[in-house]
């Protein structure tokens, strides 16, 4: 399945405004009229969060969440935000050398995907990987330590910002070459299918990449293979509207990425809403893990 999550690149002004107060005010508006959290669960309306391509079914338009789950997601996303802003400051102060591609603004995407996934599902992504490293068993010390070039870093400082890996967390990195992670992810999906008994649900593999990477030929080679062999592979485009420094309308002739799989079904999910991402990715995971192909 081809998933496209639309994020808005965060400007410096919005970063400055991203205090807890602003965040909670925004969330009350985004998640609908939410009067109180006095009960243990609440239901949220997700109408308008999904667009489907070449598939008749769709995720439900509402989701029930417990207070614990919501607080967990908020804590994780807020931690990610503080971590990335700190890295930004340290990078500008030249305490972090090398490269530093930040994920602030896109926290809901990774958090929602992880909420929908099993721990044994395989995840591979681009160089914009700090927050996914955190989700998949990493600690802040390991992540920031790697960026500072310390031996406590997740890769013992061998790689830096673009090269986090966690075998126990089924997190395959962390890739410096744009798009190269996608054929790898397809191979991971193949291994998952190969290892499972026929008829049993498979662990999925998700390959995340950006709108800039979506023009890499190797992605289409992988999509063809995944479809041909009905692999439990999810192609996930995190659309932040820029390929390096070139905006989307100047690097892509076709930017409805969720439709680019040709006959491969696609879904566009509102990537700024963690609940929509969770619901949408549960649907996607169910599809891909039960033998329907990518």
């Amino acid at each position, binding site marked *: 399945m081809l998933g496209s999550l639309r994020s808005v690149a965060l400007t410096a002004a919005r970063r400055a405004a991203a205090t807890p107060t602003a965040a909670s005010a925004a969330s009350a508006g985004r998640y609908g009229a939410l009067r109180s959290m006095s009960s243990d669960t609440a239901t949220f309306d997700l109408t308008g969060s999904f667009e489907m391509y070449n598939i008749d079914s769709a995720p439900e338009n509402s989701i029930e969440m417990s207070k614990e789950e919501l607080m967990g997601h908020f804590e994780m996303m807020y931690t990610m935000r503080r971590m990335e802003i700190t890295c930004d400051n340290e990078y500008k102060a030249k305490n972090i050398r090398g490269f530093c591609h930040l994920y602030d603004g896109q926290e809901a995407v990774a958090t929602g995907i992880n909420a929908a996934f099993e721990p044994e599902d395989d995840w591979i992504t681009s160089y914009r990987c700090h927050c996914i490293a955190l989700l998949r068993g990493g600690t802040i010390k390991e992540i920031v330590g790697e960026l500072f070039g310390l031996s406590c870093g997740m890769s013992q400082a061998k790689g830096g910002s673009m090269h986090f890996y966690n075998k126990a967390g089924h997190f395959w990195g962390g890739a410096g070459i744009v798009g190269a992670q996608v054929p790898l992810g397809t191979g991971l999906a193949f291994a998952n299918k190969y290892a499972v008994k026929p008829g049993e649900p498979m662990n999925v593999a998700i390959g995340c990449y950006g709108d800039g990477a979506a*023009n890499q030929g190797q992605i289409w080679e992988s999509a063809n293979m995944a479809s041909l062999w009905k692999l439990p592979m999810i192609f996930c485009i995190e659309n932040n509207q820029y390929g*390096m*420094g070139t905006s989307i309308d100047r690097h892509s002739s076709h930017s409805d990425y969720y439709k680019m799989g040709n006959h491969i079904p696609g879904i566009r999910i509102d990537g700024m809403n963690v609940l929509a991402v969770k619901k949408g990715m549960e649907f996607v995971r169910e599809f891909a893990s039960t033998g329907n192909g990518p």
Partner: protein
Amino acid sequence: GFANKTKMNLFTAINSAMQTALETDPSTVIFGEDVGFGGVFRCSTGLRDQFGSDRVFNTPLSETGIAGFAIGYAAQGGTSVAEIQFADYIFPALDQLVNEMSKFRYRSGNQWNCGGVTVRTPVGAVGHGGHYHSQSPEAYLAHTPGLVVVMPRGPRAAKGLLLSSIRSKDPVIFMEPKALYRASVEDVPDDDYMIPLGKAEILRSGSDVTVVGWGGQLRILQKACDMAQSEHGISCELIDLRTILPWDVDCVVDSTEKTGKLVVSHEAPITCGFGAEVVATVQERSFLSLEAPIQRVCGYDTPFPLVFEKYYIPDELKNLEAIKKVVDYAQ
């Protein structure tokens, strides 16, 4: 000598060469990722404003496409200057470079050629580039008959070599040492001038040891030669190959036959680095003139490290050791 010179750094000198190319050949087009606004290293600053977006434009993130597209345009007689944003990204394009670009003239029996192609790409260590922003892949490309591979050591060489490369009748891969883009500043002629391809340059004459390098490595080798002279009274002859393929065999052979000792140094990993080619050829041509085994001072056979870069680099101290080693051996 040239009348008018300006102090330029490497990216300004490259910009000057491209501007000259655009002015003198109306079929010249410049393209690559982000070149429109000036490029990530500012080499194409101002060119789109001056010459228009139909001649200076961005491509999508598609290296294979960029290379193939450059070949096709050149095959129809155009001059294409294609940028690969970092040489570490040249590998998806390797099939186009090796299987299409290098063989285009030969396979068509000279009906067509793509000599109008120049592929520009930043190479080399930069202090913090890590695995995928530091590589020097000249050895992969030098293993391809039909290509020309050029690497300037500074701004003055860069402008002349780039103009020669763009105007060459053969497809050229022009490798720019990225650490020098801002750091290296020289007097560069304002005029249109070309430096011949396939010819090395002797940077300092000497009698005891021949030292050979290319690109950013020459700065390190100059320091090593200075130290060899001042601390040990060793007189080094330092050669900049300038063109890796085809390389100036006679220049290196003549020098080695004079000194009897050779040290070759490059940043890329030692096994199958281009130094191996130099060593093999020199020992074949000048075996009886050699007074010591030829030394190679190169990067280690590992992925290019991040925080360990200082230990990886073949610096002036390692080169000084090699120079002393051959001198001591010969005594």
